[in-house]
């Protein structure tokens, strides 16, 4: 597998150097692998921190900046960051109003953020956490680690970030973050496996004529493996799985169609066209849409669809100014 790397062991450190070089607005703590807003620690404002395994870029470091995250903790590829990193991020960005952790529901992330919250509490910093568990592909969540956290994370970071920017207190920012998390649903489809640099070969075998419906962002298995079919049929499966899980009627919807890292934008727009048509047929109003690579899985080909059952407040916060490497408007 060909990759633009120097050595599998230095991928993360080398990539962080590029992040800092390209985006003078953020600062990188290399020892702790924390990307944070360079300036703008506004006293009294709630700070937002997220983090997770690397390989899902631009999530999370690409969303650090005005109107979104204050800091992102980067773990090794597909491996959760550690509590000491999270604590370093927490003490760096806390402005006296408390810190919200945005955590995707994977065992490693949950346990490490939990330890970090305990350490932060011991230092007198108030922390609340919101868990994102939006992947409808996981049906039997009683007997698993629960639903996985995927695309809704991007929407939580944007909307809660705008709420924090407005000066709301920690309880209020936590409340809207939780509301977004609870009203978002996602499902993905993989055409190929991702290849972890340190492993050097695809994480799973997927024959040329098959796709994995409901794949996770680390290549976790989905609902089923089926033969390759037209985009319209794949879109139908994604849309109907999500709509079967939550009633989206009568609410404005925010739609995110994200690539998984190895699929060109023309195919993502093609897929979004199919999704938009299916939603219209079902009488569902898309109020805002975002198409592109926002939560990826290294070089995996495929896409994920996220739908958020929004309300007027969420739309207003969605439209609020944001100035980050990967999301920028209104500034």
């Amino acid at each position, binding site marked *: 597998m060909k990759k633009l790397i120097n050595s599998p062991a230095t991928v993360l450190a080398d990539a962080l150097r590029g992040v800092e070089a390209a985006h003078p607005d953020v600062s990188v703590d290399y020892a702790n692998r924390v990307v944070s807003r360079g300036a703008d620690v506004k006293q009294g404002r709630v700070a937002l921190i997220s983090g997770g*395994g690397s390989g899902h870029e631009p999530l999370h470091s690409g969303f650090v900046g005005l109107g979104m995250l204050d800091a992102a903790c980067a*773990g*090794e590829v*597909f*491996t*959760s*960051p*550690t*509590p*000491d*990193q999270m604590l370093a991020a927490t003490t760096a960005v806390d402005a006296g109003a408390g810190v919200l952790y945005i955590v995707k529901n*994977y*065992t*490693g992330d949950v*346990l*490490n953020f*939990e*330890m970090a919250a305990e350490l932060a509490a011991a230092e007198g910093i108030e922390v609340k956490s919101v868990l994102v568990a939006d992947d409808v592909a*996981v049906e*039997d969540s009683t*007997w*698993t*680690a629960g639903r*996985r956290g995927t695309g809704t994370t991007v929407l939580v970071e944007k909307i809660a970030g705008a709420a924090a920017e407005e000066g709301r207190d920690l309880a209020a920012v936590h409340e809207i973050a939780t509301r977004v998390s609870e009203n978002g649903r996602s499902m993905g489809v993989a055409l190929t496996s991702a290849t*972890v640099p*340190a*492993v050097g070969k695809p*994480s799973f075998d997927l024959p040329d004529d098959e796709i994995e419906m409901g794949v*996770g962002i*680390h*290549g*976790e*298995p989905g609902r089923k493996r089926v033969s390759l079919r037209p985009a319209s049929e794949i879109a139908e499966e994604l849309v109907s799985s999500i709509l079967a899980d939550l009633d989206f009627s009568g609410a404005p919807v925010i739609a995110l169609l994200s690539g998984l890292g190895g699929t060109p934008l023309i195919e993502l727009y093609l897929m979004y066209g199919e999704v938009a048509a299916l939603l219209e047929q079902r009488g569902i109003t898309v109020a805002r849409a975002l198409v592109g690579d926002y939560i990826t899985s290294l070089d995996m080909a495929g896409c994920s669809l996220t739908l958020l059952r929004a309300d007027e407040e969420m739309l207003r916060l969605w439209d609020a100014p944001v100035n980050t490497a990967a999301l920028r408007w209104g500034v």
Partner: protein
Amino acid sequence: MRTLEDSRLTVDDLIAWLVRFDDEIVEQAGFLTELDSAIGDADHGTNMARGTAAVRVRLTETPSGDAGAVLKSVGMALVSTVGGASGSLYGTLFLEMAKSVGTASELDTAVFADAFRAGVAGVVARGRAEPGDKTMIDALQPSVEALSAAASDGVPLAESLQSAAAAAAAGRDATIPLVARKGRASYLGDRSADHLDPGATSAAILVQALADSHAERTR
């Protein structure tokens, strides 16, 4: 001159244990990753090896304190270098053991058994996994029971550690038919059966490393 009858673990014994653990993890990293690629995300060997290497550096390059200080430093090194669920769980194991032994400089079988029990209880609480969920608990819990039983029967330390290691190995092997209910393997559902659990495997290596390093030092 130490003999097989020696009934206490010293700080140096603890350090020898963890150095041995690093040797074994390095040796078996490929195997652990292979197990993990079948039902997880193919990084358990790599992640553990990064952690045990850091533990080795910390223990061999900085002066050691009492048993509690050594175990705490092991826990912190694992938490901050392994990452993922394993880092937090292995870290918790050692941090809870450290709290249990406090400032002791030598641990007899009963004190060590109590510390091990406290450590494993910490892992259970942190990971919210129960025996049978196909996790490291399936190796650790039977190992704790074997060690406690040996301690209360007055079995010599060396023998007690061997029975703890044997119980961990049996618990590890018993994970093969299980369907995972915790961690990333749980997403496979029934497809997680017929595989050895990587976490239970590294946990069995940990206990075996203690029995082996102790046997070697008292030979």
